[in-house]
């Protein structure tokens, strides 16, 4: 989009620079300015920590608002570190975290300095009236002990609080004075910012532009402007990248394979964490699957390696449970093997023959390919499978009692969830109260329930890992799961950029560097 006042000469110069940039892998240098162009997969709807919901909203918020902690990856494991706003950060005991802010961080629009009162206001506001309030369940209050210092008090011990809450965009701090002046809530028009970047302009359905905040006291960001450009379709984003219209974008599994074979000049691939997890699920209450021997037979009948080769050409990590690598409780091996003979024997023992099952899956290319491998695998042991591809919205209603009657006839399904940075965010979907909501396998186990509560409060990492391993064993023993894969969030970027992408796949614009 051309800005007013651009002359033909500017245009020619820009075109030349753009072309040169495309050929050399450089980012755009327009009239001495460096512009980073990234892809937004959806439009911005809210930049208020209370109501924001998407990755791209958090990307803007974490570049423009303070946080107390940020995620770091150390040796393949996920951890946190105090943010640049924090002078000291101390875990006092199981339920108390003491913090002290650095002085000198000022809110825009003359709303004064960032203080502990702002932290208290932001966190207590988030706990009370936020779409993230479930995540804030362990939080009780902030006790302000000085202008810049305070204690975060938890209602009960939750060792993962800093990593899963404070380092997340939901814990961005807002200016109490500014938000109160705005009536207590806002959407996209931020009443005040205090970050390395500030919002330059937001053009709905087009782009969000950020520029460095001139009053930022910290290290100046490397880019003179960040343009987060809306490109909803991922393959369109890949084409835009190849055409030189973007400098960094997420890529599809097919794109990942294609770029691995032939990377565009001046490009590199970056993988964030493999935090997604997929499995073939079975409804244990369905009459066709209520015999555990049938479910166990299906576990043995599925050739996961071949399915992953067909669907992803081996670009994903084979799953042996739900918790991905890098998190406490990640399993290195499952308790069953691909063994069609054994599957046939177990089915014969159960006296089951001529079984016909409906396999529901999202209507996505790689899922349909994988579903066809399963169809062939199960046909080989005498189970006929009808693949039923469904649109995204329809698919997610299948196991939810509030969404219709489909759950009653749900049989087997290929599904994938995304998780966070703590194992508690993986197992929570399978507790008893999730039956009829997200526990589509519809089983319950008292030991699992106890472990779920105990593990969230356990501060000993090894003990915690043992608990999560045991929980996955319980899940597997129901026979209701065939573990499939952990896929990464993959990105392509110019080699002139050193991207900063958190494990969940969010850009940290403030930490993007020029190579």
């Amino acid at each position: 989009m051309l800005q007013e006042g651009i002359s033909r000469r500017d245009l020619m110069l820009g075109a030349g620079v753009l072309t040169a940039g495309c050929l050399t892998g450089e980012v755009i240098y327009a009239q001495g300015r460096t512009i980073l162009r990234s892809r937004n997969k959806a439009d911005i709807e809210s930049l208020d920590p209370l109501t924001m919901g998407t990755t791209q909203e958090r990307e803007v918020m974490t570049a423009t608002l303070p946080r107390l902690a940020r995620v770091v990856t150390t040796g393949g494991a996920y951890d946190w570190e105090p943010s640049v706003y924090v002078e000291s950060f101390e875990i006092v005991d199981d339920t108390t975290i003491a913090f002290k802010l650095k002085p000198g961080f000022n809110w825009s629009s003359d709303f004064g300095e960032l203080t502990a009162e702002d932290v208290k206001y932001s966190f207590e506001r988030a706990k009370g009236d936020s779409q993230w309030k479930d995540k804030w369940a362990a939080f009780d209050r902030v006790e302000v002990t000085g202008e810049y210092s305070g204690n975060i008090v938890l209602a009960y011990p939750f060792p993962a609080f800093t990593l899963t809450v404070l380092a997340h965009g939901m814990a961005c701090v807002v200016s109490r004075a500014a938000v109160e002046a705005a009536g207590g809530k806002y959407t996209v028009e931020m009443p005040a910012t205090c970050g390395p970047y500030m919002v330059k302009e937001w053009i709905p359905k087009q782009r969000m532009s950020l520029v460095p905040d001139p009053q930022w006291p910290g290290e100046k960001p490397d880019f003179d402007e960040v343009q987060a450009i809306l490109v909803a379709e991922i393959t369109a984003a890949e084409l835009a990248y190849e055409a030189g219209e973007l400098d960094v974008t997420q890529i599809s599994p097919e794109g990942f394979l294609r770029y691995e074979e032939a990377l565009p000049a001046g490009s590199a691939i970056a993988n964030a964490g493999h935090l997604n997890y997929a499995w073939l699920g079975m409804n244990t209450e369905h009459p066709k699957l209520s015999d555990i021997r049938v479910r166990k037979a299906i576990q043995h009948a599925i050739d996961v390696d071949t399915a992953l080769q067909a669907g992803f050409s081996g670009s994903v990590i084979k799953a042996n449970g739900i918790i991905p690598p890098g998190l406490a409780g990640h399993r290195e091996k499952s308790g069953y093997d691909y063994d069609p003979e054994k599957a046939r024997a177990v089915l014969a023992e159960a006296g089951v023959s001529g079984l016909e099952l409906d396999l529901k899956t999202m209507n996505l290319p790689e899922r349909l390919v994988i579903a066809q491998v399963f169809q062939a695998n199960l046909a080989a042991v005498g189970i006929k499978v009808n693949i039923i591809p469904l649109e995204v919205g329809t698919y997610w209603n299948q196991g939810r009692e509030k969404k219709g009657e489909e759950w009653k006839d749900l049989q087997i399904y290929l599904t994938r969830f995304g998780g966070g940075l703590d194992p508690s965010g993986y197992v929570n979907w399978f507790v008893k109260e999730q039956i009829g909501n997200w526990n589509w396998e519809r089983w319950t186990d008292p030991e699992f329930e106890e472990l779920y509560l105990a593990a969230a409060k356990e501060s000993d990492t090894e003990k915690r890992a043992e608990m999560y391993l045991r929980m996955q064993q319980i899940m597997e023993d129901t026979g209701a799961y065939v573990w499939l894969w952990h896929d990464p969030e993959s990105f392509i970027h110019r080699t002139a950029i050193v991207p900063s992408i958190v494990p969940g796949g969010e850009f940290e614009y403030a930490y993007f560097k020029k190579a």
Partner: protein
Amino acid sequence: MAVAPDVPSSSLPETPAARRARAFWQGLKELTRNPFGAVGLVIVVLFFLSALFAPYLTPYDPYALDVPSRLARPSFEHLLGTDQLGRDTFTRVLYGGRIAMQLALVAVTAALVIGLVLGMIAGYGPRWLDSILILVFDTLRSFPTIIMGLAIVAVTQPSLTVIMVIFVLHAAPAFGRIARTQTMALKNTEFILAEKSLGARTPLVLTRHMMPNVLGPLLILAAMDVPVVVTVEAGLSFLGLGIQPPTASWGGILKEGYSVLRETPWLVIAGGMPLVLTTLGFTFLGEALRDSFDPKLREAR
């Protein structure tokens, strides 16, 4: 093919059946003289033959997985390469032709028969019944095919039968409209009035005397509708709402190919070419049939 009133008198009296046979052979002769018609006929014959004899034209099982050989380029071993599961694409194109053939024969015939019967009832029956049937025809025709298909699939499950139902709902009103018009034009002609004055019952008049004359234009329309039903299947399968895996269909091959278009374009070409050829073949044939058998066009020439 309203031949009865137009047949010139000759020295020997000709039975209606003989007249129709003569007109048929005359039309066929003209059809083969028309280059587009000849090309269309060849393509259509090849389409049916390849679908019928698919198992004898390829050594591969269309459903056998061979994942290590996935996405192979075309070679002597695999004429159109392999798909994401290592299945031979040429084989799946041939077997996809069987689905297209089933649709062409069953769905188009069903639409024709239903349209013929309802159209003749509308044209020959009382006016109130005609009004009701026309309202039904127009209502069904007002729905875009794919939108109607999406709505039906949303409340059922995708299958070949559902695709056939969708097509019949879409196409039968068109057949019905033509059958009605032809029937109305014929019902007051002298030979029909003569039959009725001789005491012929309505079913006999309709089936023996009117139907052969109404059927001609419908057969031409049927030929033109074959590509429509094939593309409806391809469209729904491309959206994942048509023929379900592992059954091979051209739309399904297109869908699978689209997801790997930039890695290997062969799947899209393999799924698209038969669609293009079938459309061309049946359209050429339908146009040529119309040119050959439509008495008005023939007279104009």
